[in-house]
């Protein structure tokens, strides 16, 4: 048993440690000479961003130093939360930020990001594709400069389907036919309760001529027949034999893996699946009929992996694919906005976009790069990607997009329970509230 003196010693030690820890607080490092610009990015493509930051710092001839930083986060939602929280708390350590294409309106309306000065905006617009540019624009002003873009394509098995389907109806029919013959037949699509489900709906809706809401918060989902049409396609996929049993939990990655395992005939997904397929050794072996097998047949899924434009709703009219991707914005809390806007031009220049495209499967937003041999080599589907960008659609550009997406993915999951005649009204009601950010977020 420790005596009173023993306890005094313990207490003294504890107090000592506390004081020592206290003195360690706030040992910040002073900035050297030139302006330091923070470049906050997600955790994907950090290597490429670091090279870009170093090269652009060098190019500025010592006027500014770009420091790439990334806060570990699990997914885009967490990344948004961390960034938005820092912006809301007026964190002055933020200058240049990688922004998801769906955050533009929200961050702009909240006053967290600065609009590009006209001269810089002009320069960004030069040579940049229309649809990506649209994702960075809010109320007629450019708030986020497009860095990369991401359109979905149709990926399919050339050995099972000689000619890719043009429409969803045709694809469901083909899948049904394959099922009857006992061959792989699933259509892999994002049906889980998350943003990916909203993307599926938005693409089908836009392809049929509809729209969820306008930039001014005008809810348009119930106008015309496009929503009912889109929902009926989703329900039909879910009820047909084309549906993967885990459709209601499926995201981009599940879809990719199902295709690699040989159980799917079709997959709607982003271009990264092509590189992934070959990085993973080409997937499962397939037999002469196209069924996956454990035996070495000398032919893998990757050998018969084809691509085509995203299936449309109306035959003869191209689908209007919802694009993803990232843009670059400048924080309203930045102490050096002028240097930041200038640095953005370099960070998204041709070299850096190409580096991202080749290194992390992020298709570029500069039209000219689609003719670049290095890019075409990495993306055999470059022509389809380029074409789908011409007809691409963007998600609703309203500050409450996040709320809208939650409402949609909640109402449409599981896809098998979609009642295409009643759910349109529910969508319209709930989106009308969500667009004004009324009500609760689940």
């Amino acid at each position, binding site marked *: 048993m420790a005596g009173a003196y023993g306890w005094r010693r313990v*207490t003294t030690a504890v107090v000592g440690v506390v004081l020592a820890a206290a003195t360690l607080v706030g040992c910040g490092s002073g900035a050297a000479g030139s302006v330091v610009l923070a470049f906050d990015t997600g955790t994907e493509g950090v290597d490429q961003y670091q090279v870009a930051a170093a090269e652009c710092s060098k190019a500025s001839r010592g006027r500014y130093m770009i420091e790439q930083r990334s*806060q570990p986060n699990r997914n885009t939602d967490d990344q948004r939360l*961390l960034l938005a929280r820092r912006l809301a708390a007026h964190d002055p350590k933020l200058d240049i930020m990688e922004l998801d294409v769906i955050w533009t309106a929200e961050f702009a309306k909240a006053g967290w990001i600065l609009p590009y000065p006209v001269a810089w905006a002009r320069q960004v617009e030069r040579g940049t594709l229309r649809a990506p540019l649209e994702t960075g624009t809010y109320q007629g002003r450019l708030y986020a400069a497009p860095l990369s873009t991401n359109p979905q394509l149709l990926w399919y098995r050339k050995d099972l389907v000689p000619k890719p389907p043009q429409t969803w109806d045709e694809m469901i029919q083909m899948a049904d036919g394959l099922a009857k013959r006992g061959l792989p037949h699933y259509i892999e699509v994002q049906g889980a309760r998350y943003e990916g489900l909203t993307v599926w709906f938005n693409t089908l809706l836009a392809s049929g001529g509809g729209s969820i809401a306008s930039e001014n918060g005008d809810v348009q989902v119930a106008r015309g027949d496009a929503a009912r049409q889109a929902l009926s396609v989703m329900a039909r996929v879910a009820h047909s034999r084309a549906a993967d049993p885990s459709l209601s939990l499926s995201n981009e990655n599940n879809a990719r893996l199902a295709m690699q395992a040989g159980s799917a005939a079709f997959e709607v997904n982003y271009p990264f699946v092509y590189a992934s397929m070959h990085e993973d050794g080409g997937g499962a072996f397939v037999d002469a009929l196209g069924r996956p097998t454990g035996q070495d047949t000398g032919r893998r899924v990757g050998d018969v992996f084809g691509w085509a434009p995203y299936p449309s709703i109306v035959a003869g009219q191209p689908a209007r694919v919802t694009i993803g991707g990232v843009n670059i914005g400048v924080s309203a809390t930045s102490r050096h906005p002028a240097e930041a806007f200038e640095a953005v031009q370099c960070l998204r220049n041709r070299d850096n976009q190409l580096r991202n495209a080749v290194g992390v499967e992020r298709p570029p937003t500069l039209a000219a790069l689609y003719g670049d041999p290095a890019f075409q080599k990495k993306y055999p589907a470059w022509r389809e990607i380029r074409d789908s960008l011409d007809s691409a659609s963007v998600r609703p550009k309203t500050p409450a997009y996040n709320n809208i997406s939650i409402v949609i993915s909640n109402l449409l999951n599981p896809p098998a329970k979609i009642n295409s005649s009643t759910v349109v009204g529910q969508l319209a009601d709930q989106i009308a509230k969500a667009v004004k950010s009324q009500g609760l977020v689940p």
Partner: protein
Amino acid sequence: MGTRWGHKCWWAVADLAIIVYALVPVLWIVSLSFKPLDSINDGRFIPAEFTWSNYQQVFRVASFVSALRNSIGIALISTGLSVVIGTLAAYAIARLSFPGKKLLIGGTLLIAMFPQISLVTPLFDIERKVGLVDTWPGLILPYITFSLPLAIYTLSAFFREIPWELEKAAQMDGATPFQAFRSVIVPLAAPGVFTTAILVFIFCWNDFLFAVSLTSTEASQTTTVAIAQFTGSSEFTEPTGSISAAAVLLTIPIILFVVFFQRRIVTGLTAGAVKG
């Protein structure tokens, strides 16, 4: 003799059941933390092969190292301040009669019951205005407040047991109440204070809600949040090994406290509830 042995045997079985109950979920994480990447998903309770690589990996993650520093620093400072402030108040509650004592007890009790989420929203708005979001003080302040009831109750329960006569005797010898407090009560109270410090430290070390709400970068993010933000090699791979290794590291101080100060912790935990 036979029945005595049978009796003991049954107790041994009961003990074993309790030990299994308490330790198996902990050993599972330890097991995961030693599994190499290629067999981490094998579902076995005992790893087929051992590796330290998950631990090496964790210490290469800059955000975890800084989070460890933040966690230790913030928990120690909060504990120190909370115990000092709590000791003063607990002494007054246990030893002195003064107007407003009931109100003070009631007030601290109210905080003990307080749902933390109720404070997170207003605190976030207040802290973002005064620039405390994502700083050490921004977390230390709520930690002190929420651990104060714990400190005050545990301490006053300990203080009630300290022999009052000794303090009185010191005062008879001409010491002021404050001198009596310092020279007589402080040494006697030290074990109680130490125990309280352990409990408060565990509370701060454990917190997740305040940390996940009021921090955002390496400047102040604590380990509980850093773990939850670990990333795998891609968005779709779960960093099971790193999380498990970090989880084991977070558990080590708790195990040390429990093993070395078991009696004190039990006394501290139950003191207030029983003696009411």
